[in-house]
């Protein structure tokens, strides 16, 4: 089972609930804004603690309310690409990419992909010595995807990564995500409110309402 997720959270008046289990390598969380898609990703990543339920990714229990299991985010190995890239502004792109790796590890890639191959696919080879504040939205988001993948995650969480990009860039990055998924076989949980993105990506669709 790639994802077995059942989380519930009360925030004031709003009740957030999301439950699905699937073997599909790509799961798309779909629904109008404000329905709790990002909160669900945060619960999977461990940034928000659910009131009840469980989070199981690739057979590993990351959270279980009844068994009192709650791994901290640092031990969940969820590569998280946020809506805004959240690159570290005081590190050049190169150091941002390697942040999720141990200190001495300068070369390691992800799965069968070498670091160089990943950088090639993402087309960020020319950006390695740039500072994040000087990148465009699309460039920053590609670096963020690379950084998340290079942390050698067991799943990839994408929170509307295309929200701030124009149409042409969107398709380009969607293609990249699909290609990276085929090459690394890392399961992807993808959040969007745009149905077309999800159709393009394929995989299972979970509708939140």
């Amino acid at each position: 089972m790639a994802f077995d997720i059942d989380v519930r959270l009360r925030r004031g008046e709003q009740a957030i609930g999301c439950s699905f289990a699937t073997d599909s390598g790509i799961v798309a969380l779909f629904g109008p804004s404000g329905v709790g898609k990002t909160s669900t990703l945060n619960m999977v990543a461990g940034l928000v603690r659910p009131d009840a339920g469980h989070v199981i990714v690739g057979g590993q229990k990351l959270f279980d309310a009844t068994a009192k299991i709650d791994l901290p985010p640092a031990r969940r190995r969820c590569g998280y690409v946020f809506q805004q890239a959240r690159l570290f502004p005081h590190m050049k792109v190169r150091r941002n990419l390697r942040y999720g790796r141990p200190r001495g590890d300068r070369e390691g890639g992800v799965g069968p992909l070498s670091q160089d191959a990943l950088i090639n696919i993402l087309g960020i080879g020319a950006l390695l010595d740039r500072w994040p504040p000087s990148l465009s939205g699309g460039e920053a988001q590609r670096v963020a995807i690379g950084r998340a993948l290079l942390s050698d995650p067991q799943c990839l969480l994408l929170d509307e990564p295309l929200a701030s990009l124009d149409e042409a860039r969107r398709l380009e990055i969607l293609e990249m995500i699909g290609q990276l998924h085929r090459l690394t076989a890392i399961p992807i949980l993808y959040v969007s409110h745009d149905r077309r993105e999800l159709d393009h990506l394929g995989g299972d669709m979970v509708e939140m309402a």
Partner: protein
Amino acid sequence: MGLSPEEWTIIALSLKIGVIAVLAMLPVAFAIAWLLARGRFPGKLLLDTLVHLPLVVPPVVTGWLLLILFGMNGPVGRWLNTWFGITLLFRWTGAALAAAIMALPLMVRAMRLSIGAIDRRLEEAASTLGASRLRIFFTISVPLALPGIVAGAMLGFARSIGEFGATITFVSDIPGETRTLPIAIYAALQMPGNEDAVTRLALLSVGLSLGALLLSEWLVRRSGGGRDGL
């Protein structure tokens, strides 16, 4: 203009006291700033008030409090003397302590602001990349707060070399030991016909403060500016 040996002694002493006071207080000020910016604990308001006390209380009162605490018969002073053989009273170390206490509120304020301005979402991002709390602290939080740390240190230094009231109350005016620039100016003013000496010392004092301020501007720009000013 050539400086007399006495003037060199005064400047060297002022710089030494200022540098030691700031370096010794830096970790303390950062810890307090961190607690005040991030912590939620009972007594936070009390700590906040206590830290700011030297800013609002007349310096002579702070000096008097130091005298009571760190004097020969003060609780801390006696303890330091019995166990470590350390005396602060009438020593340059005492002057450094007085300067550090007076600088503390300014240092904490600057650092607290910059700690409060750290984007917590970057720390979250680092945690999803597998970084421990300690690693996040040293690789994300501290570097992002660096401009405030530098600004706080420089403000504290400027305050330290300008310290007068608490210092003269606590460690008096001893040439070569506790006679810093402001105290030397005051001493020179006490003697008639000494206008030249006063003018020279006052100009030195202004020059030193200006230098510190310029250095701080430059350091702040360097620590935070390089990447933003692209």
